[in-house]
């Protein structure tokens, strides 16, 4: 096998985060201290070595950056202070940009102008759309569904859902090609794709690997603070997403419900979880009180800030509606959508959000590969015995 060394690769990676891997002397402390690293998938040193040498293809085919959850043990104990955890983070951003065939993810990660410009462009698009096409403005009472007919908004929802799914799924397909299909010698029985599919749902829902990052702190759910907080955020996010996409006709309504009605308390739970999650991320990044938040790439701010603003305008919208203030309700609704839309369009296929898909898929692909390897090895052994007979 031949390798092409590319010493300029580190400079490319530096655009994606605070990368300091030139200082690494490959002692392997990071890989050994990592609570998630195993003999089958040893990281982060392997990836760092690949990046030092500029082995672009090997890094592109690597699943390891997605298996790292940035507990920061490696960075804390690195004898060269080469920041291995941050290198893995930069690699995740780099990989997100590589999986994305449109090139937009690369633009958004490497240029603040592109990232912020895209947010404002999409926000302006939403505002202009409403200015031009809004429904009749009823001012004697709140009639949101007259101002913004729910079936049209729902149509917009579905258009966005299909579009974003297309981009995200095509990116996942490229990820699949890089990670699974790159190894031509490995034959993967189709059955494995089905039998391992549970990994996707199980890991998406539980994020169980994250729990291993907190093992030092304690064993109970409440002691594993980072996993616990992440679960809360995801539950809020997932719930809100379901409410506004699948149940929009039920969720966006002009009816007033009593407080115990699920339409209200489900929304409240999701909002609180989102505020908590986004707030936790922003406060952590301001205070830099743990390894994960020590370095913040511009893209790390965008997602939680948009999320926080979405939740905040959502609360305002809800308040105005219940106070019976028609015009503030309509304005806030437009602003709410003008923040929500760029948040989804930018982050889902091209940004930080994509890890929601890439992490479980990485675990899924890795499981398939490992099982296939075991099968292939046992087959080779069986063949050897058969030949000997």
């Amino acid at each position: 096998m031949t390798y092409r060394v590319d010493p300029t690769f580190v400079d490319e990676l530096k655009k994606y985060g605070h990368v300091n891997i030139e200082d690494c002397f490959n002692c392997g402390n990071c890989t050994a201290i990592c609570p998630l690293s195993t003999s089958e998938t040893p990281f982060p040193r392997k990836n760092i070595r690949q990046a030092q040498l500029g082995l672009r293809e090997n890094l592109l085919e690597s699943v390891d950056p997605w298996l790292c959850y940035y507990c920061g043990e490696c960075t804390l104990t690195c004898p060269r202070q080469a920041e291995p955890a941050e290198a893995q983070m930069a690699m995740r951003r780099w990989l997100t940009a590589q999986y994305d065939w449109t090139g937009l993810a690369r633009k958004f990660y490497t240029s603040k102008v592109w990232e912020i410009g895209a947010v404002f462009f999409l926000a302006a698009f939403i505002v202009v759309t409403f200015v031009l096409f809004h429904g009749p403005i009823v001012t004697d009472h709140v009639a949101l569904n007259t101002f913004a007919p729910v079936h049209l908004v729902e149509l917009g929802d579905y258009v966005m859902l299909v579009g974003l799914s297309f981009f995200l799924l095509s990116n996942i397909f490229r990820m699949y090609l890089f990670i699974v299909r790159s190894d031509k010698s490995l034959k993967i029985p189709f059955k494995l794709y089905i039998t391992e599919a549970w990994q996707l749902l199980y890991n998406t829902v539980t994020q169980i690997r994250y729990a291993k990052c907190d093992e030092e702190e304690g064993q109970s759910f409440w002691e594993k603070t980072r996993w616990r907080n992440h679960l809360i955020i995801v539950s809020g996010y997932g719930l809100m997403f379901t409410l506004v996409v699948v149940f929009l006709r039920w969720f966006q309504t002009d009816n007033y419900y009593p407080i115990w009605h699920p339409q209200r308390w489900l929304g409240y739970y999701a909002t609180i979880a989102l505020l908590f999650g986004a707030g936790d991320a922003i406060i952590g990044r301001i205070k830099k009180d743990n390894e994960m938040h020590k370095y913040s790439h511009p893209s790390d701010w965008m997602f939680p800030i948009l999320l926080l603003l979405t939740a905040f305008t959502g609360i305002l919208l809800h308040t105005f509606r219940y106070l019976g203030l028609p015009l503030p309700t309509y304005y806030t609704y437009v602003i709410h959508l003008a923040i929500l839309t760029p948040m989804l369009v930018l982050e889902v296929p091209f940004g930080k959000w994509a890890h929601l898909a890439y992490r479980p898929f990485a675990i899924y692909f890795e499981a398939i590969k490992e099982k296939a390897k075991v099968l292939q090895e046992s087959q080779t052994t069986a063949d050897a015995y058969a030949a000997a007979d």
Partner: protein
Amino acid sequence: MTNKRLHVDALVVGGGIAGMQTSLDLGDQGYQVALVEKTASIGGNMVQLSKVFPTLDCASCITTPKMSSVHHHDNIKLLTSSEVQKVTPHGDGFIAEVLLKPTYVNNDTCTGCQKCEEACPVDILDEYDYGFNARRAAYIPFPTAIPYTAVIDMDHCIFCGQCIKACPVPDCIDFNMQPEVIEIETSAIVISTGFKVTPYDAKEEYGAGKFRNVIDGLMMERLLAPTGPYGHVLRPSDGKLPDSIAYVQCAGSRDLTLGVPYCSRVCCMYAIKQAMLLAGALPMADITIYYMDIRTFGKQYEQFYQNAKAMGIEFVKAKVARITEVENQDLNVRVELIDENSQVVERHHDLVVLSVGMLPNYDPQAVFSIDIAEDKFVETPYYHNSPAATTRPGIFAAGTAAGPMDIVDTIVTAGSAAADVAAYIQSHNGHKAETAVETQTTVAERSVDHD
């Protein structure tokens, strides 16, 4: 105030192997030397070692004759339990104020009979054996101490008076002994203040201090030494003969998290040496050395390493990331096996030795007005021309005060410091060594003035 003044050619600060060698090299040339040692005995770190690499010679067989020579040398005035407090320029030379700390025992009359030690009811952990042994509050520092006289450890003394009753020499033990300051007028000064090791519990993930069977290299020296605490290599927690011993290299060096970016230059060789000695002491034990790089750069050092490999000592290229305690107070060592396809494994051992590195033992900036380098060791800016010269003319450095080095290099730098000092004295005040030899005046005879 001071009422005594000593006139010498050179003041040597620190009585370890570097300071002793410098003093002897100068004294043998006829220069008058004052050797100031902080502790109660000269000898330094080397007296605690078992054997030296790469010859496996007995360390104390080299050290103790030198200690004795220093003590009995006509041209060397030995001041133990003393510290230089202040250095002021004086003509071409210096005047150093030296504090003689009270030992509460009269050095001149104490016979070293150990009666006070036997009588003392206080038992405390012995620093000489790194806590593997006990000593009394009235004690002789170690069996080959020079001077071989008792000292009273006032921090632990309970003033019971048993030692005074037991002492056969009248007025030898004196609880009212006061500190004394003397002045030493000298042409040149040599800093040979040596090293201390990086604290073995500095890396939390190694668990030293918490796990009893994680020790450091100097502790292992004591376990291996014929004069050691157990007379055998036993592990601290339960006195078991260890079956499987791990060495963790770079446990205190080349590690920015400890603020020690440099290589300590001795740990590879002392680990290999100890592994060889262990192979002799415990023929059935497995010995593994986990290393980042093996640096065997001295004369015959590489051969020493190859011999160790041939003896069956296992060398594993891996930086130990974490040590955890398991059943029976055994230990698991977690590493990435870099040469074996990056496997991440936990390997089981029943004794772990941390190869701790070297830190400077003393910061000379305030008292001696010389610079220290980035690594906190004494700056020697003319390393290629005059290796012992510091940033201040007339002050020189020898041994590990100037940087991490082994005993072989220490002897070399001690010799070079002596040569530098001699040249300095000759060029600055025209002193001829022959004069000192001819007049046969010893320090004690000629130069204690009473104002």
